[in-house]
């Protein structure tokens, strides 16, 4: 690469105007250069041409003349002068004048029509134009006017190529994958590229599902790299900075925690954190683009077609979900695209839940996938405001029916072994989670209470398989509170017994049993700021059970609290991050201290 070539430099005109430069006018007799090169009579002019093409200081008129002569001599530009063609393809033809752009487009179309083997390099060079220019991410979801003009020219060219060469569709898809910017390259590059890929979907709807699956694949690979703790820590830091400004008197009390946290962050290298913060920003922008695409796609047309749009894009996403997302461990935010889709139309969450439940109950399916699907059901029903009470009831019915059937089929089970009965325990935990979360809705009416009693939760809890044991303690405790309050089941004896039995058990096959369920709550609070607007209004936060006795303990004298009880579940926290140290400032703000009533005997909990 010549050192003269600079990408993203200010326009040629301004550069040329800056200093008096000597540059050679580009030759316009391409045919003689090429034929001389091929016959071997004069190779130097060809090579000079190659060098001067790479320089950034070619004026528009030069380029226009060059492109004209290339256009008339396209037949000569075959694979033997491959490097010349590539050099011309990589020219920076984005100029404020339309002439250069249209000349280039004309030449390019002629080139690919005549020599179809140049289609792939041509498409790749066009896709690289989607990286845009500039450093800062766009403040809105759309590019600036200048960039938009440039992108629209590129899109027009791509569309024309696809029309002329029908077989180039597959080549385009491959090129999209090849040219996708590396995730650490910068958030704006990624944002710009994904924006343009979605633009392709609008004029080439048949490529939509493949492009979507490519984008989601890339977003997943970013999402799994960012640990949730980092994002929570970032959130905490921000909030702490806010509250510290407000509550100065309590600051001294909490310095211990601050010091320990900052010490911890000093230990992990600063570079890592910065890189992950940048990745988080990239992820945020990409999720925003996805949400905006879904929204615009669904609201494109009049109402009569809306259902078709919704369903077709939902089926695309469901397909991607089943093939990619269900198999991924540790993704935190990508699944919210399904969440957002479900908010659009009431039938979609039902379809989603049906698909998930069929995955759980399908016998031939991979066990891990079945468990993950059960976790998804639990999370969606609990966290989504769009899931109606009827839908909740129906899925709870199905789940409890399945669980009871399972228990009956396993009459001889004596120990709680997660490996053998993993799916059962996941479904049970899901059941408990949903009941703990949505108890208010479910028992709102007298009939509701009777219905919940009819689920037979007491029988499940006291069965030999002991589903409460592998559950996450926070979930088990909350479930126990709720059921005790409504007198559906009495779980505390079981919980007590479970906490007492600490001995490791060995199953018949001689292997040590696993007694902790690998928990995964897919729809834990969404931590990315920019894209959270799409999700937040349909997201249900955890509402703890309020007791008449609680008001008494919610008073201002916080000295009685001392150390926060282990099983408290403050508002923005997820049960999955149960081990996270509860910040006392948060605790004082969130009065969701877990307690279950005025009965004196259980105050120890």
């Amino acid at each position, binding site marked *: 690469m010549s050192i003269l070539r600079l990408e993203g430099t200010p326009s040629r005109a301004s550069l040329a105007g800056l200093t008096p430069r000597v540059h050679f006018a580009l030759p316009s007799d391409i045919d003689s250069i090429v034929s001389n090169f091929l016959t071997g009579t004069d190779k130097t002019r060809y090579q000079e041409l190659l060098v001067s093409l790479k320089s950034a200081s070619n004026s528009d008129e030069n380029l226009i003349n060059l492109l004209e002569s290339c256009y008339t001599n396209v037949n000569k530009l075959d694979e033997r002068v491959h490097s010349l063609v590539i050099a011309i393809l990589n020219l920076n033809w984005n100029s404020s004048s339309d002439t250069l752009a249209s000349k280039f487009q004309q030449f390019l179309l002629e080139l690919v029509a*005549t020599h*179809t*083997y140049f289609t792939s390099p041509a498409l790749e060079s066009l896709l690289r134009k989607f990286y845009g220019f500039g450093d800062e991410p766009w403040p809105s979801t759309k590019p600036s006017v200048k960039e938009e003009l440039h992108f629209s020219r590129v899109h027009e060219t791509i569309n024309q190529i696809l029309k*002329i060469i029908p077989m180039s569709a597959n080549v385009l898809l491959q090129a999209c994958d090849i040219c996708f910017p590396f995730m650490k390259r910068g958030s704006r590059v990624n944002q710009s590229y994904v924006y343009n890929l979605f633009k392709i979907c609008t004029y080439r709807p*048949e490529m939509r599902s493949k492009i979507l699956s490519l984008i989601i694949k890339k977003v997943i690979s970013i999402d799994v790299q960012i640990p949730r703790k980092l994002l929570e820590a970032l959130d905490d830091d921000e909030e702490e900075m806010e509250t510290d400004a407000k509550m100065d008197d309590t600051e001294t009390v909490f310095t211990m925690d601050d010091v320990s946290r900052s010490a911890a962050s000093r230990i992990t290298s600063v570079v890592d954190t910065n890189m992950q913060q940048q990745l988080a920003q990239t992820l945020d922008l990409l999720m925003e683009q996805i949400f905006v695409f879904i929204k615009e796609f669904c609201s494109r047309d009049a109402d009569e077609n809306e259902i078709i749009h919704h369903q077709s894009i939902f089926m695309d996403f469901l397909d991607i979900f089943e093939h990619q997302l269900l198999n991924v461990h540790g993704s935190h935010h990508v699944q919210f695209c399904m969440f957002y889709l479900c908010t659009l139309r009431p039938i979609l969450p039902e379809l989603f839940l049906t698909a998930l439940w069929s995955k759980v109950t399908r016998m031939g399916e991979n066990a891990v996938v079945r468990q993950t699907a059960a976790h998804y059901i639990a999370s969606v029903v609990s966290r989504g405001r769009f899931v109606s009470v009827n839908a909740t009831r129906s899925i709870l019915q199905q789940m409890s029916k399945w669980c009871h059937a399972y228990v009956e089929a396993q009459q001889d089970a004596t120990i709680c072994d997660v490996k053998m009965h993993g799916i059962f325990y996941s479904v049970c935990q899901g059941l408990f989670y949903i009941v703990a979360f949505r108890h208010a809705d479910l028992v709102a009416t007298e009939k509701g209470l009777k219905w919940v009693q009819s689920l037979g939760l007491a029988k499940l809890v006291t069965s030999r398989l002991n589903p409460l044991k592998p559950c996450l303690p926070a979930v088990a405790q909350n479930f126990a509170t709720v059921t005790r309050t409504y007198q559906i089941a009495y779980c505390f004896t079981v919980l007590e017994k479970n906490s007492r039995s600490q001995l490791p058990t060995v199953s018949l096959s001689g292997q040590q049993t696993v007694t902790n369920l690998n928990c995964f709550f897919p729809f834990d609070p969404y931590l990315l700021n920019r894209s959270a607007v799409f999700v937040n209004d349909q997201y249900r936060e955890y509402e703890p059970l309020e007791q008449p006795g609680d008001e008494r303990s919610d008073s201002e004298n916080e000295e009685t609290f001392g150390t926060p009880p282990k099983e408290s579940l403050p508002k923005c926290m997820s049960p999955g991050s149960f081990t996270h140290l509860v910040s006392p400032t948060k605790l004082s703000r969130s009065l969701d201290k877990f307690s279950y009533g005025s009965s004196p005997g259980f105050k120890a909990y």
Partner: protein
Amino acid sequence: MEIEEQMSATSKGEACSWVHCVKELYLQPHYFNQVQKGVGDAMNATINKYQGDLAGVVRQHKNVKLLSVDGTITDEESYIKLQVEADFEVFRPFVGCKLKGVVNKVSANNVSCLVHELFNVSCPNAMGSDDWVGYNAVLGQEITCQVTKVDLTGRIPYIRASIVKLHQTENGNHKHFNEEEEVEEINLQEEEEEPVETPKKKKKKDKSGERAKEKKKKKHDSEDEVSTTPKKKRKSKREDVSSESEVIEIPEIDILKALKRKRKSGDLPDSPIPKSKKRKLHMNEAGDKFYYDDDGGPIFV
């Protein structure tokens, strides 16, 4: 060996021919439970790709038959090899054969056309003559050309030819180039479907059917409906549409997509003569010929 015999049979000038032969397919592990789908997907994957053993690009296949109940696994390979017998329509242009295509791009020294609505053939003005036939070519015109160079090894086949004859269609009308856009569906391995009825009517039917079924669904909350409501309706229509279809397993939503695309994306051909029906030609008192279109109005030819 069989291929070569048949190649000589086609050397009388046909580039596109049906070949009956045995092909070896690889069945990946995730298809072990769904062998038919696996075979179908593997066969569909051969479409529009150059197949070395067939020495050409496969356009369609039919009559797929498994030769034996067993497959073979060799060494540490994870897939099962199956022997399959089928008819393939193979496009095998060779130097000297004649191809018939439709012009899709005209420029200074070059005419590009589409053969079988899929393959690009470029016809340059090789001799550099001033009264080259191609200077009279018009977009959408039918053209016969003779192949001078073929290279099928790249992702997109490269075919160069010289123009033999420019055709004139009836009434001086050329096939509108916009209609070529619909053929892009073929590339992405979707089935070639003729809409059985006009798109508008179909959509209305679907909508009312869907509404009724949505209501039902809300009442029942039945769990065994994994398929969405539109799927049921479309399944019956699917059987009608089977042409010599190369697709065995069809994702159900495709008709919906195709309908929506055709109607809303503006890619409908602008041709004055609606393609989907065989329209009867009428004549009014003045002697003008016309067709009736969907709305009942006359379209003059």
